[in-house]
């Protein structure tokens, strides 16, 4: 983390005038210092947990709450907070309400996962890694230059690997190794792109991307698409997210993939010529993910494929993606935590044994939100995204919304009863309900962000979509017995797919961005 070594520099002496973004209004100095302290806090706390294992959970929770408080400050900033450390080639930070949404998601999901794990006897090592992961994800949401982003993404890879491999079983190690391998190879391509940006601008800031050679855009895009689990490049994601332990899956799906998505959105907002590419990938991944999800017979794999698809909604309309990312993070982590407590992972077996009603209610609330049902903030987010689509995106995204509702009808129509037979009823820990309170409560309260969505026209459309989806579910997909091949998820195909993806991105860049 040598990008943070400039902490003790007096802020006033920084050569602000040489920054590429110097034209933007400068924020006050206390806010700058606060930001740096906030970025450093989780990394510092992570190491303190190693030294003082006894206060592990409290400290980790405190860090998450501090992030939540900080993100609230961002929503009330009059102007985007932007400043750089060192010279023009140094670390650049950019914080505005968009990053506020992502940071808030990160804070809530981390807090919920810590509460969920409170009584499970996880070692201090687990909490230390989780805190470091939280900090590096925060750093990825705060920075505005390619090298800080690189460092943040690589620290995320390492911390996520250690969390995935926490059970130390052969399978978990292989899944983690596969993740680390794929993301590290992608980041090597990304590094090549980053140096090309530097060569033209003598700075690594995002804003230099438009003047950089076209190859730079293609290489950086490839790295971020793989890291963010988008489209074909994201096929590593289903196995990784479904084979990890539930709390780790919740973290990975809820926030970690968004560290790859956020820079894509940020670039699309800064540079209008890149915007269509990001939107195309949004529609593509939304349809690809949902096509797999509707035929999936395994609960956790369905959730993982739905993550691939939901990221598409975030990318499809970058200017409003922050709110969607927040609702998706809350929904997906609550779903992963709930599904981890079901007696089986297979839908076929779950049809035979009724699940506990209280669990079903949690599951249904989250499923309704992700399908876009009114009263939950998934509705507002979907309305806002649909409103900001370009005309050519509308059909694809509505199809994806329909597919999502079909996929989650599988959860809503699971049989349930008040007192299931003794054999399946593992007692639920109080930590589980605390986590649900944070996530689902957040989901209800987040309605306030976009309450203008509640008009008759807006309410009728999702109800119609959900209605059609349930009919389709009953008539077709409940009986359908299609097994999609998993060959594309093999390790060598993932790496090979990366080269195909590179060709595709190159073609897109040369065809669209060049003119």
């Amino acid at each position: 983390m040598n990008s943070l070594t400039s902490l003790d520099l007096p802020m006033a002496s920084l050569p602000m005038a040489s920054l590429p973004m110097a034209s933007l209004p400068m924020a006050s100095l206390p806010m700058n210092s606060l930001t740096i302290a906030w970025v450093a806090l989780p990394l510092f706390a992570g190491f303190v947990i190693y030294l003082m294992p006894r206060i592990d959970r409290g400290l980790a929770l405190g860090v998450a709450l501090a992030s939540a408080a900080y993100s609230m400050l961002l929503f009330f900033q009059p102007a985007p907070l932007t400043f750089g450390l060192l010279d023009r080639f140094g670390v650049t930070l950019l914080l505005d309400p968009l990053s506020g949404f992502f940071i808030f998601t990160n804070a809530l999901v981390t807090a919920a996962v810590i509460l969920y794990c409170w009584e499970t006897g996880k070692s201090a090592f687990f909490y230390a890694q989780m805190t470091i992961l939280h900090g590096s994800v925060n750093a990825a949401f705060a920075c505005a230059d390619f090298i800080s982003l690189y460092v943040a993404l690589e620290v995320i890879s390492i911390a996520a690997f250690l969390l995935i491999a926490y059970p130390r079983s052969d399978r978990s190690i292989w899944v983690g190794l596969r993740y680390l391998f794929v993301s590290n190879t992608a980041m090597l391509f990304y590094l090549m792109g980053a140096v090309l940006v530097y060569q033209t601008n003598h700075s690594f800031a995002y804003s230099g991307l438009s003047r950089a050679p076209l190859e730079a855009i293609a290489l950086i895009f490839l790295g971020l698409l793989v890291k963010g689990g988008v489209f074909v490049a994201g096929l590593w994601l289903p196995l990784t997210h479904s084979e990890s332990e539930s709390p780790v899956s919740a973290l990975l799906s809820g926030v970690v993939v968004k560290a790859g998505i956020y820079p894509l959105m940020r670039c699309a907002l800064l540079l209008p010529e890149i915007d269509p590419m990001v939107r195309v990938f949004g529609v593509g991944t939304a349809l690809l993910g949902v096509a797999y999800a509707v035929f999936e017979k395994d609960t956790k794999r369905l959730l993982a494929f739905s993550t691939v698809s939901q990221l598409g909604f975030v990318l499809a309309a970058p200017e409003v993606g922050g709110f969607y990312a927040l609702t998706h993070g809350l929904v997906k982590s609550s779903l992963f935590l709930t599904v981890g407590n079901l007696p089986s992972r297979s839908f076929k077996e779950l049809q035979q044994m009724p699940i506990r009603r209280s669990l079903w209610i949690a599951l249904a609330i989250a499923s309704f939100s992700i399908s876009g049902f009114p009263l939950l903030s998934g509705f507002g987010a979907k309305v806002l995204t649909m409103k900001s689509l370009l005309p050519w995106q509308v059909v694809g995204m509505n199809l994806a919304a329909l597919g999502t509702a079909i996929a989650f009808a599988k959860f809503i129509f699971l049989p349930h009863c008040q007192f299931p037979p003794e054999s399946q009823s593992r007692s639920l820990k109080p930590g589980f309900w605390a986590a649900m309170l944070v996530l689902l409560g957040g989901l209800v309260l987040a309605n306030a962000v976009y309450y203008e969505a509640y008009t008759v026209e807006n309410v009728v459309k999702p109800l119609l979509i959900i209605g059609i989806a349930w009919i389709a579910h009953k008539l077709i997909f409940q009986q359908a017995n299609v097994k999609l091949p998993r060959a594309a998820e093999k390790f060598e195909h993932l790496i090979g797919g990366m080269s195909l993806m590179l060709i595709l991105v190159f073609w897109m860049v040369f065809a669209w961005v060049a003119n």
Partner: protein
Amino acid sequence: MLEAFVFATILCGFFGIVYKQNLVMKIISMDVMSTGVVAYYVLIASRDGLKTPILSEGLDGASVAYADPVPQAVILTAIVIGFSIQALMLVGVMKLARENPTLETREIEKGNTP
């Protein structure tokens, strides 16, 4: 010319990751690829000059063609990160080697995918 060699190194590493069967060979291929990327940074840093960018007495900065220190400093970070990731991977491979002594990727994958 040098640039072509650098790209050849990167491609060799990339194809090694795809075509080598053994997990350790794959990791070494990845190292070859990252060596190529490091060399590319060094190459770009030396576009404007080759001298070490350290100011010393009797030399004034304007007349000497210095190498650009920024890409070199940045790639130092990347080397350290790459090194730690490889160390982590090799520890994982050691653990896997107990059950799969041949370390054939396909065998490991078959045994560990549902």
